């Protein structure tokens, strides 16, 4: 699986794609693969403040419930409501299925996140695969 090079990644397996002051957030292919079939996504609310490194929601699979960590600080401008009835969208294509869009407080925060190649070596190291 190729990890898009225009995304940045967290060690908690979220991706973020920035476009100026705005950004889109989802979970990585590796995350969906490890979780297995996702059955529920707990979304933030539009207008919520999210803080870099803090929990903003959760995903539940048949195996486990996993917290979602915000890759950057900002305000939620949009969430994908479809995920409440069709969480399988994430399993089908994790890098296309976004969870929330945020307005970034400080776009330079993304510089500290992993680039695609660094994320790929990170998951290789973490799983030993």
């Amino acid at each position, binding site marked *: 699986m190729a990890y898009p090079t225009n995304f940045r990644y967290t060690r908690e397996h979220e991706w973020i794609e920035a476009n100026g002051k705005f950004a889109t957030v989802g979970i990585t292919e590796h995350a969906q693969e490890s979780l297995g*079939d996702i059955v529920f996504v707990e979304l933030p609310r539009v207008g919520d403040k999210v803080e870099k490194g803090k929990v903003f929601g959760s995903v539940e699979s*048949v195996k486990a419930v996993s917290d979602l960590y915000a890759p950057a600080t900002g305000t939620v401008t949009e969430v994908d409501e479809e995920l409440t009835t069709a969480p399988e969208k994430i399993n089908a294509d994790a890098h296309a299925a976004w969870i929330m869009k945020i307005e970034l407080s400080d776009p330079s925060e993304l510089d500290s996140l992993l680039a695609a190649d660094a994320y790929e070596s990170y998951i290789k190291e973490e799983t030993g695969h």
Partner: protein
Amino acid sequence: MNQKEKFSGTPRKVTAHLTQNEGLSFEKSAPGKKAYRLAPLDVPEVDAASLLGDAVRSQTAELPELSEIEIIRHFTRLSTWNYAIDLGMYPLGSCTMKYNPRVNEFVSRIEGIAEAHPYQPEQLSQGSLGIMRLLRQCLLEITGMDAITLQPAAGAHGEFTGILLVRAYHEAKGNPRRTVIIPDSAHGTNPATAAICGYEVVNFKSNAQGGIDVEALAQAVTEETAALMLTNPSTIGVFENEIHRIADILHAKGALLYMDGANMNALCGKVRPGDFGVDVMHLNLHKTFSTPHGGGGPGSGPVACKRILEPFLPVPVIEEDAEGQLRLNYDRPQSVGRVRAFYGNFGMFVRALAYILANGPDGLRQTTEDAVLNANYIRRKLEDLYELPYNTPSMHEVVFSDRRQTRNGVKTGDIAKRLIDYGFHPYTVSFPLIVPGALMIEPTESESREELDLFVDAMRQIAREAEENPQIILDAPHSTRVSRLDETTAARKPVLRWRRPEQA
């Protein structure tokens, strides 16, 4: 597939056994059948409907109507679908599914104990109170703690009670503090407990040995840390060797050490948490002390603590008065209050005490040694075929990963389902979370070498199947009444109730 094609070897333990098809009780119902006969009315009849007024329902509830023998058969047939510790090994890691000795059941059925009522006056309940007092003494001796409550109904409830004590302690000193530190290997109930008690959870990463990095902990603990919640031995079955230093780091900042006692069966009779710096902990009587669980009975999660936390224990507490009578004392102004109706799950106290007294101190020590020996036996017999993610010595359970089997597309959940075909309950799948694709196996002290060998055989055959015929594992189980279930659809679109089919 015929029986022969379903196995690459011959399972020595179990093959498909006769299971009976059985519908829902609603489907078997017919109007007018009943399994009771009321005595003739010997008091004046009243019109219930008129007394109920607006609350009376106009439609009869559609409850199933069956005769007595139909009900007996219904539930007996359903019971043939079950797996139980009385049928074979139940190696669920972390759950400690040990044998529930018959002597426990015998004692709990003695009339004076079985028929005791919580509203009996104290002077008529001296025996029951005495059982609770003796159990408390035994548990305090085993844990090395100063005070204890038996009220909590299970492990997570014990955690909740324990962290309430922590909070009450800090509040009494003027500041409840803000955070609870929890290692990433912890049971999921730990962060849930901290959060519901109003604390912010600080997730703490395990080191390469699966334990606590003491230097990193020293950095993480602050004046706002209320407690560290630690499971020892950890969920990968490893003893925290630095536990004394961990306790010192916390105490230096005024924080407390909570121990999740889920794995106490690896310590019982060997070391005492009270001696290695633990301030408060819970026990799982339904794990360590052999009372039934997993559908077989309520749990019980006593919480033991050091003297500093005693004033905050739930009410009532048992005390002996000047005449030697046992009394229930509710007058405890600093108590966190009641956490359970009456005095806790008394039937479990009786069983746990029976287990403790039947074994005695040396017997309990031996159960610990046997539990550790059994886990290490399985480890040695399987480590050439299944990956060991941590090489630290195992205590009461061993954690493998499915890394080698995933090369053939076989994951831990598939191996577990295949194990059912060999006549065993699955081990714990995908936990702890720090091991990707975990196979967590806890044989407990109950298993003989013969049963362990059957289990090892099954696991070795499954490893071979993963190489030679992975599909047979991916389609498993084959020998059960229903084969592989669609867990995802069950979770996404659950059918939670029966509806009468539309009449044509």
